């Protein structure tokens, strides 16, 4: 296979390495060092895409991230990446790419008919129509618009690759490895500072890669940097945003240049960088000029044509013209001529300049005082019209297949702007440059308007040195810098050449100069309004080549200078970044860590079905073969507790050791009830309120010693309660001498509950007299359980005689097994969260669904727990009228009148058709089979005994329920005290 436009020598491609690739199904060949764009051009492919709205044929316009046109769907299947810029996609063997946003073939896209409709499809047309008939919008108009809009097609398959995140710290971060960045990194590195140099390209050098004469300097500099131990060179790394306090984000592409990532290699890595000082050396993007037909394939930025010739050894056209507005652009003509193209004309609006003279000397036809006033061709450029500057006439036609456009430079000020620096207008360069830094940041080289390699390098070296000094280092030795003659880059401001035909300011979103003027006419005259009305600079390129041109057209319409109009606000990202990279590693199964109790393996062995409780995994139930369904397992487990004995892992409860001389005083203030009167060796149920008087949490707290308490919290609130306690100690009562330690992980705990609980506990615990007198309900004592030091609590959540054994977590499995062994003769069964829930609903204990942040103690029937004397959190605001309003819903028990009819949490309670409450928890009962629940019901107590409706219209259910006391099971607590 041949590459007809590839030069025999020169550039940075490795002609010995042939890479095969395909575009729209056709096979081609390129070389290592190519981008997809350079390889396509080498093969003479010029039509690569269709525009957004009018589906106009488009070709490769740039050679970098600023590309508006050459967006392709890269790769296939699950790895398909829409909107990939061919100009930065590194070629690899087997690459396949498809053109996008076309109906039909790329060469014949029948959506191109939109171009004919353009007078009616101008900026904002959809806001003014599609309103009648109303129903048509949803069904007809909108689907049509949506299908027509959008660019590439996403794969609908899960992304097979994985991503990584990493953190970096440095003294000096240098962004961009052109002449300025390389010199900055070297100067900073020479001071001994820790330097990171990030470059989005796969090669370091920026514009130096187009300068064969400076290749030696580039190589020497890169080698010197590589040899510095504290300098880190990171190619393929795009710095995408500058955030507060010297933090920048970057994405490193580790495997995008390969067919797929090798084993153990992420596709990309997302970096968070904390830099003491930042040098921005991000170069500049070349500016388009808005003339009619400025979008035809074959119209290309001059610098890009030069890059294709010099860096990639590719001749982007055979007969070329250059539309230049400054001397710096002329090198493109020389480059493309060296590459073997014929220069048909150089069009320059200026009357004369040094470069124009040199060009004439070289034999080029230079048309001074001229502009390109139009283009000819269909899917490819065939010629241009050259008119006199300012005349408005179309002028002579010249046949060319490549038009190189050099409207001047747009410094890449994105990161500086994001860091907070205002932009300043540079009158000489007709462009915006970074203003005074707000953060510890400085710009160097082309990104602040310093053009020419020598000048940029010198600017970079100074910036790098200054940055290192600002970071606290002493200046290092100077390095040699490239000594080049700088051409004048001050462009003559030709923003627009007016004439018949569409002149684009945004090639991607098909925004024309007329659209901008229309926006102005309709009052969208501010740049931010004009942007939104026309979608100018809102495409994937964010207006890198034409943003300022649109501003200039608007400025003219407003009759004001461009400086006054300004640019739309820059935002992350400097270039679009892969979603997967930002997401990092913590996705899918690892979205959040799984928290496991020390009994996890034991439950697994017992066949537990798991459920999520926050980030914890907890056993829901333990199915047995004979269980018909999940409910059978749950009922069996609950029955075991009611009739014999069960064992349950309650390790997830939060546990806080509260110690110190003021511990009791402190607990009195954070709990609504009193703890200072609690004797050592006893536990008490505690109720904690938020300051607004709403119930926050509940749990048992035990007094282990005169100044030592062991507080337990609900699983969900363990963290918030700890923080609540710490906050009040620090802010409200700093005088209290109390220390808090989270011991949730240290202590595992199991509940052993049921009529036979005492027998089981007695069989494994030493050192405690378990008789009811010696160890009554709410007693606590240290003990030895199954040979390990443990703590025994006589507390019950199920309503049965019950104990909790807490032991150091590493011993929990052993204790559990011992309990199972001892309990075997008593018919012990492990029970999970579902049975636990069932038991507590039967007993009328509140849990998370009742303590939902909306209920007061009074609502829950716990009002009498609030102490009458002394301050405590929530005391005052709990007295507000709305909180004590007797019409507030109160906790009630519920029972389905027909025991077979299920009631559900989330159903509402209707009394005479009026919504009077809702069901908080529901279950089947084992004590009195049938469906029961807890709920919040207005005038709940008064309604006990009545029958109301549990309405669940979402599921088409309406179930009569009887209102009962929430404490239906053993209301006198005889069992737990037995």
């Amino acid at each position, binding site marked *: 296979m041949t590459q007809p436009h590839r030069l025999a020598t020169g550039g940075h491609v490795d002609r010995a390495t042939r890479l095969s690739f395909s575009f729209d199904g056709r096979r081609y060949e390129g070389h290592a060092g190519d981008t997809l764009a350079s390889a396509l051009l080498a093969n003479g492919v010029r039509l690569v895409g269709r525009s957004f709205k009018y589906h106009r044929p488009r070709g490769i316009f740039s050679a970098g991230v600023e590309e508006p046109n050459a967006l392709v769907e890269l790769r296939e299947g699950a790895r398909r990446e829409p909107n990939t810029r061919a100009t930065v996609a590194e070629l690899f063997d087997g690459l396949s790419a498809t053109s996008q946003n076309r109906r039909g073939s790329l060469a014949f896209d029948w959506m191109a008919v939109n171009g004919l409709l353009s007078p009616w499809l101008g900026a904002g047309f959809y806001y003014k129509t599609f309103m009648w008939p109303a129903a048509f919008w949803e069904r007809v108009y909108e689907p049509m618009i949506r299908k027509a809009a959008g660019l590439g097609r996403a794969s609908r398959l899960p992304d097979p690759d994985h991503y990584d995140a990493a953190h970096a710290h440095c003294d000096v971060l240098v962004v961009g490895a052109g002449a300025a960045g390389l010199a900055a990194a070297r100067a900073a590195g020479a001071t001994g500072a820790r330097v990171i140099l990030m470059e989005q390209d796969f090669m370091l050098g920026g514009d130096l890669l187009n300068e064969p004469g400076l290749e030696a300097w580039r190589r020497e500099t890169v080698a010197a940097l590589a040899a510095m131990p504290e300098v880190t060179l990171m190619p393929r790394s795009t710095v995408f945003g500058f955030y507060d306090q010297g933090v920048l984000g970057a994405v490193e592409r580790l495997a995008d240049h390969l067919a797929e990532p090798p084993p153990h290699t992420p596709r990309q890595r997302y970096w968070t960088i904390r830099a003491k000082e930042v040098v921005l050396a991000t170069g500049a993007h070349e500016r388009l000029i808005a003339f009619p037909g400025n979008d035809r394939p074959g119209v290309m930025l001059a610098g890009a044509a030069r890059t294709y010739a010099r860096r990639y050894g590719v001749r982007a056209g055979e007969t070329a013209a250059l539309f230049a507005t400054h001397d710096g652009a002329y090198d493109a003509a020389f480059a493309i001529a060296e590459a073997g193209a014929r220069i048909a004309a150089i069009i320059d609006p200026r009357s004369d300049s040094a470069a124009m003279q040199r060009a004439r000397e070289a034999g080029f036809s230079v048309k001074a005082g001229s502009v390109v006033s139009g283009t000819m061709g269909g899917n490819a450029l065939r010629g241009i019209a050259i008119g006199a500057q300012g005349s408005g006439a179309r002028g002579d036609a010249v046949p060319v297949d490549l038009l190189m456009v050099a409207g001047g430079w747009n410094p890449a000020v994105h990161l500086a702007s994001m860091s907070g620096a205002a932009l300043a207008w540079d009158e000489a360069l007709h462009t915006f440059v970074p203003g005074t830094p707000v953060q510890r940041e400085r710009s160097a080289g082309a990104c602040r308007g310093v053009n020419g390699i020598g000048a940029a390098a010198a600017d970079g070296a100074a910036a790098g040195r200054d940055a290192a000094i600002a970071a606290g280092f002493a200046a290092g030795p100077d390095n040699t810098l490239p000594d080049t003659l700088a051409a004048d880059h001050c462009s003559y401001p030709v923003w627009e050449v007016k004439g018949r035909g569409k002149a684009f300011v945004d090639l991607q979103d098909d925004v024309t100069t007329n659209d901008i003027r229309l926006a102005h006419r309709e009052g969208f005259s501010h740049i931010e309004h004009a942007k939104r009305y026309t979608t100018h600079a809102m495409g994937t390129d964010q207006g890198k080549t034409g943003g300022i041109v649109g501003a200039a057209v608007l400025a003219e319409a407003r009759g004001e200078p461009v400086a006054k109009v300004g640019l739309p606000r820059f935002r992350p990202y400097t270039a679009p970044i892969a979603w997967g990279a930002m997401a990092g590693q913590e996705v899918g199964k690892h979205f959040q860590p799984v928290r496991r109790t020390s009994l996890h393996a034991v439950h697994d062995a017992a066949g537990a079905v798991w459920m999520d409780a926050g980030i914890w995994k907890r056993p829901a139930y333990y199915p047995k073969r004979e269980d018909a369904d999940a409910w059978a397992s749950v009922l069996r487990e609950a029955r075991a507790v009611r009739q014999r004995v069960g064992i349950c892992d309650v390790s997830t409860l939060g546990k806080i050791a509260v110690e110190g001389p003021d511990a009791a005083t402190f607990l009195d203030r954070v709990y609504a009830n009193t703890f200072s009167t609690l004797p050592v060796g006893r536990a008490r149920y505690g109720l904690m309120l938020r300051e607004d008087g709403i119930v926050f949490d509940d749990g048992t707290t035990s007094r282990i010693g005169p100044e*030592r308490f062991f507080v337990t919290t609900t699983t969900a609130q363990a963290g918030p309660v700890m923080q609540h306690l710490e906050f009040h100690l620090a802010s409200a009562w700093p005088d209290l001498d109390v*220390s808090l330690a989270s011991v949730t992980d240290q202590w595992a705990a199991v509940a052993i509950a049921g009529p036979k609980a005492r027998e089981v506990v007695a069989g494994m615990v030493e050192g405690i007299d378990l008789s009811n007198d010696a160890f009554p309900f709410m007693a606590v004592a240290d003990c030895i359980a199954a040979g390990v030091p443990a703590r025994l609590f006589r507390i019950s959540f199920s309503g049965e005689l019950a104990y909790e054994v807490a032991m150091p977590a590493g*011993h929990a499995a052993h204790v559990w097994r011992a309990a199972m062994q001892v309990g075997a003769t008593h018919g012990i069964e492990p029970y999970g969260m579902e049975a636990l829930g069932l038991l507590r609903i039967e007993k009328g204990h509140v849990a998370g669904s009742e303590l939902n942040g909306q209920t007061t103690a009074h609502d829950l029937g716990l009002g009498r727990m609030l102490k009458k004397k002394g301050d405590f959190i929530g005391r005052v605001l709990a007295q507000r009228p709305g909180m004590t309003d007797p019409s507030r819903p109160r906790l009630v028990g519920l029972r389905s009148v027909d025991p077979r009819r299920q009631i559900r949490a989330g159903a509402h309670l209707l009394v005479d058709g009026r919504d009077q409450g809702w069901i908080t928890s529901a279950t089947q009962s084992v004590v009195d089979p049938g469906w029961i629940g807890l709920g919040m019901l207005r005038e709940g107590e008064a309604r006990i005994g009545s029958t109301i409706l549990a309405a669940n219209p979402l599921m088409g259910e309406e179930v009569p329920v009887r209102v009962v006391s929430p404490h239906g099971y053993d209301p006198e607590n005889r069992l737990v005290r037995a």
Partner: protein
Amino acid sequence: MSAPEATHPLAAVATPGLRGAAGVAPLRVSLPVRETVQVMVRRGREEAFAAAMEASFGMAPPAPGHTLAGGAVTAIWIQPGGFMLTGAGPGLAERAALAFVGLAAVEDQSHGRTTITVSGPAARAVLARGCRLDLHTRAFGPGRAAMTQIAHIGCLLHQVDDAPSFELTVFSTLAEPFFHWLVEAGSGDGVVIA
């Protein structure tokens, strides 16, 4: 019944062997068995506490962000007036409780915390995939400690030597996902689990 060996939270997953690539300098990972005791000094008793620390453990309380080793016990600063004592057992918690009566609250956390040692030239780069601290030699080093988050999991990190070796102490109930992250982060270089 006699007290059995405690079950290590990572017993099931941290089986010895190589994970990931067979790199030249894989990360070495081991699980030292430690007793870990949290000590919180009482208000106004700092000096008496320091004296007691000196008397019982032969060292001063470490400064913020630092560790100090006194014989077999290492003290790690974890919070204002708070330290973690770690060392081979048994009985460290009892020793500390005795030493600090009236001076500090002492909580045994030996089961509540799990320590993982990572070591080798790749250690810093691997940790940087989840640790937000600057572990460069100029910013950190042996004898330095920090409470932080690694891969969004709370972690007490301290550097032991220049190999470099780091000890990572995490909540035991989160040790498994933490370990998973570590192995995943190190898989490019390879991880050798001792």
